[in-house]
């Protein structure tokens, strides 16, 4: 691996660890209607929007996996959910030619609703039912956090991935562009 690639990979890992610590050390306690925001999901959404489905997929998987390591919920559920959502946001971003303005804010909010639905739906499929009554406040709060924070996180993601750079996480995981 070339030094520059290693440098970008190191930055990526640092951002993931930083987001994880912020999430469980600070954001998790900032609750509204019993629910809170999700910085790891936000990273996947921002990656998908800034650089398309591949990046969204890779970041979603990595961020979800990192989150799964510190949770008591079924291992792999966050990784699957965030990978799918990051990929979906990337597809929408490409299809719409990455429009600015309110588009990223709206898509990020919708991604919050989608992620909540997928997480709970897959949970039911694998025999870990989450009460449906808990879902509306969770979906709304996650969507609101996503909408508020997506623009600064996109800026961070642009700095991180740069222009026309290969996907570092994908390289590590052995994927191809």
């Amino acid at each position, binding site marked *: 691996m070339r030094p520059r690639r290693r440098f970008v990979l190191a930055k990526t890992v640092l951002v993931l660890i930083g987001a994880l610590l912020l999430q*469980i050390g600070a954001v998790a306690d900032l609750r509204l209607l*019993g629910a809170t925001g999700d910085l790891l999901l936000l990273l996947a959404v921002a990656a998908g929007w800034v*650089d398309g489905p591949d990046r969204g997929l890779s970041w979603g998987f990595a961020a979800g996996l990192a989150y799964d390591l510190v949770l008591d919920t079924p291992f*792999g559920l966050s990784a*699957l959910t965030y990978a799918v959502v990051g990929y979906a946001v990337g597809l929408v971003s490409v299809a719409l030619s990455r429009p600015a303005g309110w588009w990223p804010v709206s898509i990020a909010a919708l991604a919050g609703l989608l992620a909540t639905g997928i*997480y709970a739906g897959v949970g039911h499929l694998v025999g870990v039912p*989450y009460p449906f009554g808990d879902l509306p406040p969770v979906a709304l709060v996650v969507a609101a956090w996503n909408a508020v924070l997506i623009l600064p996180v996109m800026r961070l993601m642009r700095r991180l991935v740069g222009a026309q750079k290969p996907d570092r996480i994908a390289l590590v995981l052995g994927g191809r562009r």
Partner: protein
Amino acid sequence: MAISRPTGSRTRLVVLLLASVTLLTFGVRDVPVIRDVREGVGTVVDPVVGAVQAAARPLGNAWNGITDYGNLEDENAELRDRLAQLEGDRVAATDAETQFAELSRSVDLPYVGDVPTVAARVSSGPRSNFSHAVEIDKGTDDGIAVGMPVATGGGLVGRVSRASGSTATVELLSDPEFRVGVRLAEDGELGTARGQGRGEPLAVDTGIDPDTEVAEGTGLVTSGVDRSAYPAGIPVGEVTKTREGSGGLALDLVVEPLVDVDSLSYVTVLQWTGDE
């Protein structure tokens, strides 16, 4: 900026989705290697998280002040009423006696017998929206191990689901995966209670004979039957409703937990591993 192809890399999509599903399959079965990895990560991460939590506490307090403003007003009014009442009763020595008795009840758990206990502070709430677990500030260094029951003076709170050196995770009884064998305090009928989510009552939908007469307010305690994960006699909740279940083959109970697990400050871990 170059954007990935609209269809993305199908190979990567397939590989990562398969990897996620495989991990999830192992995760749902809670295989030992994943549990070990999580415990290892917890040992490394928990002290750092503790530092982040300490640094972010003012932010959390400010947030709660804003978002719980309505509740704080109500609480404030309630506290003023209580204060006035206490001031009026100040001269009465019985007040001090009552408070002393109440304090004794919260510190001593009369139902645990000679099982050793460890008192712990709840250091943080659930780490995600779908988690029903809290962190406590005591761990294996204090004699806490996975599987130990956790309670307060009011009754059962949950069980230790993960433990590292200085912290532990407590799975709350509101977790939909939580199960506990229970016994009706009045007639000894056995059943299994399960969590149904945050703020929801427990459900007992297996084990209770349909001919059993269960009155509203009937208490439930842990059954402690052979190989139970909990010692017998820990108060769990009170029946608030009964209904016919399983096609008339069982009686379903709706049970209100005795402890509000959404607002815990201190808990007691029972150093009971089921071998006693």
